């Protein structure tokens, strides 16, 4: 019941935003609505995080789902908050009409509802449908500016992701074939019953299912070599949406992969792991190369997302409890630090009117708040202590060394060092220096709140690990390794 409410809330608020009540009121509706729906989501997620799984006919929220739901709800609320002033500027500078603003909020909130749906459903089929819907809806957000670049990006996004989703559907068909003889009736595609009966599934079918499912959803998660849509889509979308797509949407596909990974590892131990290791390493290699040559700040950040997804899938690929802990920690770290950096870059690109990093100089002098928060964001995204990405990467490296993968650990250290150098080399020069352009900080409370919340969140996760959080993460590790918590 509460789960239904949690998913319907954003959708209802989205519809309310379409009412013709003036731009100011629309902003108010969107912000208040998303605050309330996040409160509902958090309220809904607390019992599962304490270990009381919600298990009804359609919904299934255990700790793993609740973890992703929490991240989604909180980050999307901050994105809505940040988007308020961002879009106001776009409106004032006549890049968007007020009609487009309305449809933007409508789509954005529907998009959030679809993401929540993906994590809360019980059946693999519904998870797939959720991921499909997020693609269709977010294509409009990518193509919001109706210029040629945005349209191209949206086109590429919908085409490549549709292929990915088709392949994932074939994976589901295979999964269904493997399970329909073992699990009777409607339960044959439900995640909990699949896990419970995993040992009896046909291993050959499950191998095919794993290949199709991981390649298909890997496309959506931005794993190389299927990542071509990602830099375009993430750079062409408006900054709040970029943050949401990087920080949360990629998680949707990763969540699907994780759920499938649990089953696949019981049936064919090591098969999904190998696949994920290969794709993960490829992603990091590709990301390293492109981070070094990117000239556009949002494209560079998008490649950094490819890198992070690669790290998470490598962690899944190693698959020891420590590595799985690292995977979940990396999910959390990425979901906080990437939106932070995208929001900061949104401030800068709007003030300077360009995304080319060579044309942005002297941010700290002109925009004190943005300069400071970008410093934090850059360190967070590049993976410097005390930010959580550093801890996550460290856990991953330890896990690799502990399981005897010395070559992998060595390669990772080198690549991560190059990425760190590449990101900081491009971001820090923007902060210092001088510019002739007339730029100034926007006086906006909502922007500051959303950015500050992310900085504080990142610092908190990076520095402290309360026992309760640790227990939740450990329980999720148990779920990921195929047990019941």
């Amino acid at each position: 019941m509460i789960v239904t409410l949690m998913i319907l809330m954003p959708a209802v608020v989205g519809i309310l935003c379409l009412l013709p009540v003036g731009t100011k009121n629309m902003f108010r509706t969107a912000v208040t609505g998303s605050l309330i729906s996040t409160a509902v989501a958090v309220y809904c997620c607390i019992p599962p995080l304490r270990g009381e799984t919600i298990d009804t006919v359609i919904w299934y929220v255990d700790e793993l789902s609740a973890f992703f739901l929490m991240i989604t709800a909180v980050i999307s609320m901050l994105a809505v908050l940040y988007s308020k002033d961002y879009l106001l500027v776009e409106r004032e500078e006549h890049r968007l009409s007020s009609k487009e603003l309305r449809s933007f909020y409508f789509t954005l909130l529907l998009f959030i509802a679809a993401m929540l749906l993906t994590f809360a459903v019980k059946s693999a089929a519904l998870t797939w449908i959720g991921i499909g819907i997020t693609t269709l809806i977010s294509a409009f957000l990518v193509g919001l500016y109706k210029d040629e670049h945005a349209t191209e990006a949206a086109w590429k996004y919908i085409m490549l992701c549709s292929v990915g989703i088709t392949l994932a559907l074939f994976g589901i068909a295979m999964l269904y074939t493997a399970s329909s003889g073992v699990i009777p009736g409607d339960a044959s595609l439900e995640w909990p019953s699949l896990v419970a009966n995993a040992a009896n599934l046909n291993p050959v079918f499950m191998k095919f299912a794993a290949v199709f499912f991981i390649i298909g959803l890997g496309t959506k998660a931005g794993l190389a070599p299927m990542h071509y849509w990602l830099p375009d889509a993430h750079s062409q979308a408006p900054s709040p949406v970029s943050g949401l797509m990087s920080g949360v949407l990629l998680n949707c596909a990763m969540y699907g992969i994780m759920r499938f990974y649990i089953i696949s590892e019981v049936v064919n131990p090591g098969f999904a792991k190998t696949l994920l290791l290969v794709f993960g390493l490829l992603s990091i290699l590709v990301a390293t190369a492109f981070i070094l040559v990117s000239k556009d700040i949002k494209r560079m950040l998008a490649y950094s997302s490819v890198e992070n997804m690669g790290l998470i899938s490598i962690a899944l690929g190693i698959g020891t409890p420590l590595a799985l802990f690292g995977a979940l920690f990396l999910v959390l770290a990425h979901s906080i630090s990437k939106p932070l950096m995208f929001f900061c870059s949104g401030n800068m690109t709007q003030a300077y009117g360009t995304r080319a990093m060579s044309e942005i100089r002297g941010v700290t002098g002109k925009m004190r708040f943005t300069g400071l928060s970008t410093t934090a964001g850059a360190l967070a995204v590049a993976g410097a202590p005390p930010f959580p990405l550093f801890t996550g990467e460290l856990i991953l490296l330890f896990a690799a060394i502990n399981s005897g993968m010395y070559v992998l650990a060595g390669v990772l250290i080198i690549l991560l060092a190059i990425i760190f150098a590449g990101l900081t080399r491009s971001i820090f020069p923007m902060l210092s220096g001088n510019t002739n352009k007339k730029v100034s900080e926007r006086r906006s409370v909502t922007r500051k709140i959303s950015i500050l919340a992310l900085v504080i969140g990142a610092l908190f996760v990076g520095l402290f690990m309360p026992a309760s959080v640790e227990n939740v993460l450990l329980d999720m590790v148990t779920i990921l390794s195929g047990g019941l918590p």
Partner: protein
Amino acid sequence: MESILTSNLIDIFAVCMLLASVLAMATTRMHPLIRLFLIQSIFQAAFEFTVAYSQDEPHIYIMAVMTFVIKVLVIPKMLYYIMDRIKVTDKLVLSVGVPGSMLLSAALIMLSYFVSEPLVATLATAERNTLVLSFSIMLISISMMATRRKAVSEVVGLLMAENGLFLGAIALSNGMPFIVELGAFFDVLMAVIIVGIFAFRINKSFDSVDDTLLRRMREE
């Protein structure tokens, strides 16, 4: 009600679907391409009808009807409408020529026999063939998306891949749960609608819907 006749019919329809895909690789114009998709969908509907009849599965009858309505009647109409409105040149731009595409298709069909070898051992004969055909259709359609440089041809490639997928799903397990099938149809339909919207937009800001556009945005 399974008889030699129905199992032969199932095979024939499935093979015809593959033929449509291979012919699509050989076309250099867009209108015939859409027509081939239409023909493939007719065969798919026929295939589903025969399976439904021989297995006595009511929900596959519904699928057959839905395939016919959506993929034979609605989507080709929409594609023609889009083509007419945006006034593109009918010619396709091939990055791999027709002979090359034919060789590629042949190679992909052999590849699908090769990869489905371990699966095939566990299946009955009729399912075996359809599964391999479904793999081939998917692979050929996706490679068609990769080697044809027009927006509409990419959409047709995607739709044909979806047809191949349904063929495989029905061959393996008499279709999937109804909700998945509904979702898949919805997904296809929405994708075509959205693609249509973007095609209009592209048409506004470019001279033609030319899919060099999918290859333009690269790092400089």
